């Protein structure tokens, strides 16, 4: 298929259908409403399931049920709605169930705003619910990258039997860009879901149970360690990132999502002024791409984290850096997307120049 011009949320919805999504359960919240709206019409054409739930809490528990029954399931929401879903996401991680969750992030805390934000970084990368677990999370930059990841996410979730989250700021959900939804994407070899509790115990010859309860302390610790092993495998295999003009950089900006797009033009401007600046762009937010930082050149004496939140990802940069390089931070909140000029000025200040 040639490229088509689509709105971010609708493109993600179609990408989910193309990724083999069997069922969608969701609840309205701005700025992600075009995802359920699109699916409410189109899932039927493919003989698949769409349910508008009574709440985000119900929706994620429908996802838990359908995933437990072996289906490829999607839900989408935005920040406060994701907060409500965290109980179910924790249950899915504990029960080792796959699902794909789209989070079109808006400003917070509380009801916050409906403008774009990256203020969910912590709830996206720290599990978000109770217990020791992780959600494999992506923070894509363009609509093409977003839809490619949505299509791959179902395989990745099935492979690890773990929830996978696509976390985009509201801008990516709301903007239009040309996308190809039939390009080649990596496919994974997946075993049959012989663990699913789908009402076929007769056919199977044994009953299956989906549960996250382990009352025996040794048993639960064993389960926790088994999950940890899986998360270690994700850390080893799944770190994704892009490095742009970092080879000779004196200062490297760390940014993801929409902010990374703005930083690309900042780099052009500053390089013309002779300031050697590069971009390290995390694509996976968890696992955080530690490997990328190992590849930075000696010349890079300083890292500047820029995000649409007040230093959430910066905490990870600080941890990975382990005191090696000077660190700086620039963030905007409240639904404000930082402009190229203000980021460029921040860099000029840091390298000792004066604002243009």
């Amino acid at each position: 298929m040639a490229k088509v011009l689509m709105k971010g949320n609708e493109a993600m919805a179609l990408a989910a259908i193309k990724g083999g999504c069997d069922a969608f359960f969701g609840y309205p919240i701005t700025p992600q409403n075009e995802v359920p709206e699109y699916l409410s019409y189109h899932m039927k054409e493919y003989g698949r399931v769409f349910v508008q739930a009574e709440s985000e809490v119900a929706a994620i528990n429908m996802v838990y049920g359908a995933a437990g029954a072996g289906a490829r399931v999607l839900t989408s929401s935005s920040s406060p709605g994701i907060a409500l879903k965290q109980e179910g996401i924790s249950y899915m991680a504990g029960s080792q169930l796959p699902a794909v969750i789209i989070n079109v992030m808006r400003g917070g805390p509380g009801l916050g705003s409906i403008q774009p934000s990256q203020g969910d970084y912590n709830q996206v990368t720290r599990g978000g619910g109770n217990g020791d677990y992780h959600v494999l999370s992506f923070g894509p930059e363009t609509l093409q990258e977003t839809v490619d990841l949505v299509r791959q996410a179902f395989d990745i979730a099935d492979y690890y039997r773990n929830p996978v989250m696509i976390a985009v700021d509201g801008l990516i959900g709301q903007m239009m860009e040309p996308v190809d939804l039939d390009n080649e994407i990596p496919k994974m070899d997946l075993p049959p879901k012989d663990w699913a509790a789908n009402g076929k115990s007769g056919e199977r010859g044994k009953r299956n149970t989906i549960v996250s309860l382990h009352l025996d302390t040794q048993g639960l610790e064993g389960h926790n360690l088994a999950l940890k092993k899986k998360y270690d495998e994700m850390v080893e295999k799944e770190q994704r990132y892009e490095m742009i003009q970092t080879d000779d950089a004196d200062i490297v900006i760390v940014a993801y999502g929409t902010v990374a797009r703005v930083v690309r033009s900042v780099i052009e401007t500053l390089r013309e002024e002779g300031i050697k600046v590069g971009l390290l762009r995390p694509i996976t937010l968890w696992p955080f791409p530690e490997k990328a930082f190992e590849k930075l050149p000696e010349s890079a004496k300083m890292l500047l984290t820029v995000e649409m939140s007040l230093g959430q990802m910066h905490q990870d940069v600080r941890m990975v850096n382990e005191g090696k390089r000077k660190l700086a931070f620039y963030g905007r909140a409240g639904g404000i997307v930082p402009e190229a000029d203000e980021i460029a000025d921040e860099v000029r200040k840091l390298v000792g120049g004066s604002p243009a």
Partner: protein
Amino acid sequence: MKAQTIYKPTEGLTERQLTYCPGCTHGIIHKLIGEVLVEQGLLDTAVGIASVGCSVMSYEFFNCDTQQAAHGRAPAVATGIKRVNPEATVFTYQGDGDLASIGLAEIVHSAHRGENITVIFVNNAIYGMTGGQMAPTTLIGQKTTTSPRGREQAEAGLPLRMSEMLATVPGATYLERVSVHDPKHIRKAKKALQKAFDVQTKKQGFSMIEFISTCPVNWGMTPQDSLNWAVDQMIPYYPLGLFKDATKEEN
């Protein structure tokens, strides 16, 4: 004389020993569900949803596929399973704290959508598992660990009648309240369960059977006194009977 088998446990339950307190009626209700699933040939296609509370371990007891749900969310979990596997027989097993308090939205909306699932609602007017706290179903004057002077209407309102409430929901198909305090009522309860699963098999929509149950340990009574209390105190407030049968309206 040669030994003959005149009674054996239902194959609808596993051989796992039940975890319920002596004298509680969960055991009888489990047995009835197991028997009905076997008799109607549904065990091999069934998925049971365990909730949070005394029956949390029921995923170990029903001899079919099972899934354990977060507190109150069993009807949402059942919705997910049933929508992607319409041929499966999906039932939830929930207590009154789970269904009538934290899970109120999920039960009302699954009835509202007319989900083709069967809900087993066990009402013993108290939170059993957590040690006997007040539930929405606790009777006026009933002492619990969080209503130590007895439930007062001014503070906690009047007990919630779920079957009556759900009977006002247009999407619900079959709602009946039963009791298992004596053999006659146990037989009647089994008939209600048969009907509820029959409604699901015929794809007629949402069915719920509410069981009046007992909690000797947290009520502070002997098993027999508990059964008497259920009859004398609970049934007058929670009358037994059929609250809705939309299958008749269809005929």
